[in-house]
């Protein structure tokens, strides 16, 4: 028994996140019985990646505050004030917390025609499925699962999203949700192909599909090496997260809410944060592919966290850019969105592929 | 509110003559009440009601009355100034006339020739007047005042025919005078004609605005409540009644199926006291007098008395609005004399 635990401890200790800043505190905590095991577990890189960064903690915080940041920033650009009345001297910072509480205590209405079981299960399933790609995205050198096929797996998991969203619409069994679902499906098809081709261009450029390697071996960021791929990837990301110029399926003003028109209460709350979760994941992927991942001036006090810090900073920047798009562009019609997806973006993606091939051949 | 010409700042003064009070130290209305109303001389022409500035004189159940006059009377003397019976100078006979003739309107259907209506509307066509006032009646032969504000009201014409019942013509006349632009034409009984003349004598505004006064031949008027009760007793059905007339001392009520006749003398019991002191049959003071007596059936006897009346009558003839008949002066003599006999009732 003890041998097993010691073996496990050795495995964990050999792969620890080192943070010089909190080491004195950790040394103090070592004196408390059993605390050594706990610290070892938490600081074990795969566990740390899942639970803290870039996993649940950082993800959760961004889910909690990005809606607020988006609303506040868009309001500033549009000469408004944004969330204001709740803790007004801090600019309504806990607005989303209040919204979440409201969603929690609201009744979840399941209408008569809905497929009750799926209707209630899909929001939670979707939420969990949306978290899976985080396992493969490295924040600096912290990653949960290190595999040479990281990018392919992430792309595969991203391609699962539409299935779940369409499942939401299907379980609602409502004509409005159905229309929204069909529109969503169209947009996904238009966006997935250029998205995947742009990512493939980067695999060709870096000659690897291991996300950790991709991030750490970028001496020049990918956005400079292949800007066309970066642009294609960014527009496709906007389409994939249903942000404003491509908010075709949801289109609040005309169609209410797209696939999730029938949802209310906490089920709706979960779906509401889905697009922010998706935005977080795709922004993280974009940071790894085009912005050098956790590359940046090393901060000695943070140790391993230095990479994670730069990664999160860049990810938040990409997310913010994605969200601010809504103040700049009006929404496209469905046909315009599809046209953009299938012609200019596909051509751009192919050009990006060609650029990568040429660069690889030259260098 | 129209703006008149510009004026200079300064005090504007004017004098108004008020009549002598017969009863000193009493209000003017008390004078009127003592001299006219209480002596049964009042003919209910309602001239006083129309002129009262406070609008407080009222015609209540066919008696002119002023509730609370001690408090509310402004004591301006207007009622006394305009009352035709205050200094009563009874007129009788046929009076002066320019033309004695008869006519039958082609546009309107009345009891006889409907010439009263024709005169008002022809004057309106001429542009002499823009408002006219008639007496209207309903199915039960109750009277009401018909105020014509334009030619387009030709379609809903008043029901013509002699009504031996009072109507509030003159209060409506004052309203018309206040609002008219060109002038007002009025159709009324001899007592009302005297009232209009008295108003015109006293007030230039009436002289200026009342252009045409058509008088009606009048033997007497009755209060509706009393006369209707009497006629129903005689077997008259108001819904079938076509016309009422007085022919040679007999009251004739013609209905669709039968006629009821009885002597006028029998109505003396309900004859109002004012009428029993009236001697004017042909409305001597009017511009044109109209009536059924003195011409063939279907024609109205027309007595044109003044230049204004002559102008309108010439216009009617020129436009061919009426057929011209023949008037017989001698046929009027009986009724003129019948009313002249009433002079003996007057004790001044």
């Amino acid at each position, binding site marked *: 028994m003890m041998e097993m635990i010691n073996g496990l401890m050795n495995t964990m200790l050999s792969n620890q996140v080192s943070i010089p800043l909190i080491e004195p505190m950790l040394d103090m905590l070592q004196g408390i019985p059993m605390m050594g095991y706990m610290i070892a577990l938490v600081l074990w890189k795969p566990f740390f990646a899942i639970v803290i960064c870039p996993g649940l903690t950082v993800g959760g915080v961004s889910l909690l505050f990005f809606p607020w940041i988006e609303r506040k920033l868009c309001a500033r650009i549009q000469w408004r004030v944004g969330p*204001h009345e709740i803790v007004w001297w801090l600019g309504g910072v806990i607005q989303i917390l209040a919204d979440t509480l409201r969603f929690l205590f609201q009744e979840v209405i399941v209408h008569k025609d809905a497929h009750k079981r799926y209707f209630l299960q899909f929001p939670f399933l979707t939420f969990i499925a949306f978290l899976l790609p985080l396992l493969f995205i490295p924040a600096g050198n912290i990653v949960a699962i290190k595999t040479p096929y990281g990018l392919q797996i992430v792309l595969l998991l991203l391609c699962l999203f539409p299935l779940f969203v369409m499942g939401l619409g299907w379980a609602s069994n409502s004509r409005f949700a159905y229309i929204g679902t069909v529109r969503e499906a169209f947009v996904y098809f238009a966006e997935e192909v250029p998205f995947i081709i742009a990512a493939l261009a980067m695999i060709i450029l870096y000659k690897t599909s291991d996300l950790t390697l991709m991030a750490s071996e970028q001496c020049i960021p990918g956005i400079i090496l292949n800007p066309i791929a970066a642009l294609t990837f960014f527009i496709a990301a906007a389409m994939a997260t249903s942000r404003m110029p491509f908010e075709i399926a949801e289109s609040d003003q005309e169609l209410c809410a797209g696939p999730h028109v029938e949802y209310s209460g906490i089920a709706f709350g979960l779906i509401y944060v889905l697009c922010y979760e998706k935005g977080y994941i795709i922004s993280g992927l974009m940071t790894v592919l085009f912005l050098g991942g956790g590359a940046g001036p090393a901060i000695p006090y943070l140790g391993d966290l230095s990479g994670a810090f730069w990664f999160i900073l860049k990810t938040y920047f990409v997310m913010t850019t994605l969200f601010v798009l809504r103040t*700049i562009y009006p929404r496209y019609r469905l046909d315009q969105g599809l046209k953009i997806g299938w012609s200019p973006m596909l051509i751009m993606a192919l050009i990006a592929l060609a650029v990568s091939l040429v660069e690889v051949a030259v260098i | 509110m129209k*703006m008149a010409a510009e004026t200079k700042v300064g005090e504007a003064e004017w004098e*108004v003559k008020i009549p002598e009070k017969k009863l000193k130290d009493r209000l003017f209305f008390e004078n009127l009440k003592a001299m006219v109303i209480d002596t049964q001389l009042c003919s209910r022409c309602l001239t006083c009601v129309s002129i009262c500035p406070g609008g407080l004189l009222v015609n209540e159940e066919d008696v002119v009355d002023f509730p609370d006059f001690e408090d509310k009377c402004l004591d301006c003397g207007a009622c006394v100034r305009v009352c035709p019976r205050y200094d009563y100078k009874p007129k009788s006979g046929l009076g002066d006339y320019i033309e004695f003739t008869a006519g039958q309107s082609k546009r309107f259907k009345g009891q006889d020739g409907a010439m009263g209506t024709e005169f008002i509307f022809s004057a309106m066509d001429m542009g002499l007047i823009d408002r006219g006032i008639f007496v209207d009646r309903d199915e039960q032969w109750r009277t009401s005042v018909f105020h014509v504000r334009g030619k387009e009201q030709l379609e809903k014409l008043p029901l013509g025919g002699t009504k031996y019942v009072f109507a509030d013509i003159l209060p409506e006349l004052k309203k018309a005078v206040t609002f008219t632009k060109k002038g007002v034409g009025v159709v009324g009984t001899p007592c009302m004609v005297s009232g209009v003349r008295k108003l015109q004598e006293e007030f230039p505004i009436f002289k200026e605005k009342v252009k045409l006064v058509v008088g009606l031949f009048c033997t007497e008027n009755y209060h509706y409540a009393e006369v209707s009760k009497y006629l129903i007793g005689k077997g008259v059905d108001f819904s079938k009644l076509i016309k009422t007339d007085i022919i040679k001392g007999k009251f004739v009520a013609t209905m669709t199926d039968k006629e009821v006749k009885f002597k006028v003398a029998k109505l003396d019991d309900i004859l109002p006291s004012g009428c029993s002191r009236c001697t004017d049959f042909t409305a001597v003071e009017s511009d044109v007098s109209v009536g059924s007596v003195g011409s063939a059936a279907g024609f109205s006897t027309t007595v044109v008395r003044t230049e204004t009346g002559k102008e309108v009558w010439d216009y009617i003839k020129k436009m061919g609005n009426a057929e011209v008949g023949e008037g017989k002066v001698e046929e009027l003599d009986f009724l003129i004399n019948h009313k002249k006999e009433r002079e003996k009732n007057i004790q001044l």
Partner: protein
Amino acid sequence: MSGMKKVVAPEYNLSDKIKTHAYAIGTAMEESVYPHTATVLYPREKKKMPDNFRGYILFDPDKCISCFNCSFVCPANAIRMKEAPNNRYYPTIDYGKCIFCHFCIDSCSGGALRTTKIHDVAYKDVDEMFTSTEEMIEPPEIIREDKKSVEYVIDETDLHLKRKKERDGLFVEAVPPVEIPMVSQCVDRGSCLACKICERVCESGAASSVVEEATMTVKMAIDAEKCTGCGLCVKECSMQILRLVRVRK
């Protein structure tokens, strides 16, 4: 359809497109750093209102001449005249009907009605919106939370908010009524009844009458020096022979 004009989208070439996109993004970035807020944070800030702002209406019974002009002119029929204990008629306003056109204030010949900058009055129910004369004399109870006043400034290019750390006064001096140089005059003196209604209604003592018993005449007079041109006698004259006429100076 002939005569219909086809709307053609403006044509942009690639460089134009890139320029417009760059301009849009640049504006967004600029605004996110230095925003021009157009929102007034109402209870804590208040917009600065001009002096002729059409707000809650106050009433001064001392200046009222009971001419009924306000209730006659009111297009929403919100003003009713009610008899006060001193037998005078004073206006009452039903704020459920009032459309705040302030014709009443413009028409007030005595300057008894005046505007304020109060525009946020709360009522418990509809019946309470009927404001009696007594309630119109004093302003309603006011709780002020605002610390700043905000002004919209339109400069050459855009509209901006200018915030000042001062409270905007709610009350405005009553604008003295426009002196219309009009006096009442009798246009048909012969038709005068000498009913003396003009003397009774005249507030300024311009119309007067003297009865001379000896000659049985009434001397009527309208003093144009005293006449304010309120038009009360013109309205009340039973023969409608009085008119308002313009004064030549």
